[in-house]
């Protein structure tokens, strides 16, 4: 069995090191603001860029509450909502600035709003959290998506845990996905129950699992059980089961899960057969190997790397 995940050592990145939002932290947050500002400015008209720089500066110098709300409100008006569409170099800089940070599907106004929020409260992490909570409480959908996507960039990540979990309880799929997808925050901060609820909710709302960071590292036996129960419930109701569900089942599959997976190896649906083969190959139990052994073609595809979860995803 893989070792249990140790939560205490993760989430230690450059912008979030100590409990006090000290000098080093400020520099780091500043570099994130600079990076975001650079992306926004490069994609804006001269007027919009000047406005944005002015607001970043104004919010950085004891702004009034109204200053903050109006700047965030004007962000979509001034910057537009086009895709940020980062170049490979820009993406690499993002990943270097903050491990796991993936802004590949962000829009310009989202980057702008996150920079404005980061700029608006630098006194300490608790004051920042207070400001952010107030903004969350009166946010529109676009702002909610932006603020949730910004989670990995905020100081003292653990302070934002209740908020992040609130996001994964949302009835609005894009809000849920702003936390769950392409975001390193959950894998670094969620405990096992929170993680498992998020994965199950993704399936419930018809969302994808593949864009969840840490899907394989965070697999665990209770999640395996929850997903198997869920799959049986769906089957009983005559409803389809998303094949990628089995990705989180394989590593910890118990006897009944292996029986379910073995049955899927003869499914009429090719994606289900492939998902079952991938999941069984992750199980490392004799029962799983034996179930797979009579399906030579699938076994070879897994062994040679022709079949992976990402290639399954591409189909």
């Amino acid at each position, binding site marked *: 069995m893989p070792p249990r995940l140790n939560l205490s050592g993760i989430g230690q990145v450059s912008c979030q090191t100590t409990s006090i939002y000290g000098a080093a932290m400020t520099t780091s947050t500043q570099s994130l603001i600079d990076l975001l500002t650079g992306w926004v400015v490069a994609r804006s008209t001269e007027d919009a860029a000047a406005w944005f720089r002015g607001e970043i500066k104004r919010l950085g110098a004891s702004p009034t509450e*109204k200053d903050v*709300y*109006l700047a*965030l*409100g*004007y962000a*979509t*008006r001034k910057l537009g*909502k*086009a*895709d940020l569409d980062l170049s490979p170099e820009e993406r690499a800089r993002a990943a270097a600035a903050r491990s796991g940070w993936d802004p590949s599907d962000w*829009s310009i106004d989202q980057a702008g709003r996150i920079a404005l929020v980061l700029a608006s409260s630098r006194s300490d992490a608790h004051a920042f959290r207070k400001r952010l909570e107030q903004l969350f*409480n*009166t*946010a*529109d*959908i*676009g*702002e*909610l*998506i932006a603020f949730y996507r910004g989670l990995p960039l905020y100081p003292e990540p653990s302070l934002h845990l209740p908020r992040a979990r609130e996001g994964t309880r949302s*009835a*609005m*799929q*894009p809000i849920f996905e702003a936390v769950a997808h392409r975001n390193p925050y959950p894998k670094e901060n969620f405990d096992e129950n929170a993680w498992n609820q998020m994965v199950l909710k993704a399936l419930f709302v018809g969302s994808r699992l593949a864009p969840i960071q840490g899907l394989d590292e965070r697999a665990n036996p209770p999640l395996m059980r929850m997903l198997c129960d869920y799959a049986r419930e769906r089957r009983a109701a005559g409803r389809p089961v998303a094949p990628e569900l089995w990705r989180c089942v394989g590593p910890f599959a118990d006897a009944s899960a292996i029986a379910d997976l073995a049955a899927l190896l003869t499914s009429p649906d090719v994606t289900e057969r492939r998902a079952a083969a991938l999941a069984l190959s992750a199980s490392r139990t004799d029962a799983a190997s034996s179930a797979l052994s009579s399906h030579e073609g699938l076994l070879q595809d897994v062994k040679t790397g022709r079949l992976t979860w990402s290639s399954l995803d591409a189909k």
Partner: protein
Amino acid sequence: MFLDSHTHMVSRTTDDYERMAAAGIVACIEPSFWLGQPRTNVGSYIDYLSLICGFERFRAGQFGLRHYCTVGLNPKEANNEELAEAVLEILPRYALKEGVVAIGEIGYDEQTALEDKYFRAQLELAKELSLPVMIHTPHRDKHQGTLRSMAVAVEHGIDPSWVVIDHNNEETVRDVLDRGFWAAFSIYPHTKMGNERMVEIVRNYGAERIFCDSACDWGVSDPLAVPKTAELMRRANISETLIRKVTYENPLEVYGKSGQIADAHWLKPAAIDQRTLYMGNSVLRGGQTPKITEDNKQEGSALGNLRIV
């Protein structure tokens, strides 16, 4: 295509959304209103405004309608001074939210001093943020209340072409049009304005600065009032040009001044909206003719079964 510029969708069901989309309504505007009973604290206002800028907007998008709103303290609740002060304090947080197309519904209910005070304060906010204004005219002492609303707006230097006077009737429309304001008519079954009276209004006054809405809410009201009125106008041989102005173009023009509503939102939605917020109007995308029916089984004979109530 229709635009219903006055709907309280938080009180309506998914059936309503489906029927509205099927009848060709592409967008709706949800003015802030009271709940049928008074709010007791600013917290319930905050959650309400967040709801109409948030989940309701999302919900509408799932049915193929774009959803917009207006924010404001309604005149009934302006009479609770403690609440009113607190709401005025938090309104700037919402006035620039995405899809907020006006400050409204504001105006008078019983024309009290407190109503007057907060009406004026909100006119100033609209002016500061360059937002149109939606004025709710009082049910009682309507004519005088309407004249007073317009006079106060002018006194505050608001351009009448940025102001919609809603819930008009035959007694108020002339004064509203003469002063350069927009005249909206809420089509209620049984009461206030019925569809037929609306047809007469358009016959008599044309379509310049005139439009109709359903004002559908938690009371007896009809979310299909706009398409039904359009159909009735068609039967009365009113031109398609006029019908389009009264049921689509005019509200789009005045609320479009906010910069927050444009036909591109439903005709050519931004990529990010399509991915996250808006499922598109399948009827219109499929190139079908919008239908106004009460019952899908009777779609083939939409005209014959149209109920004008």
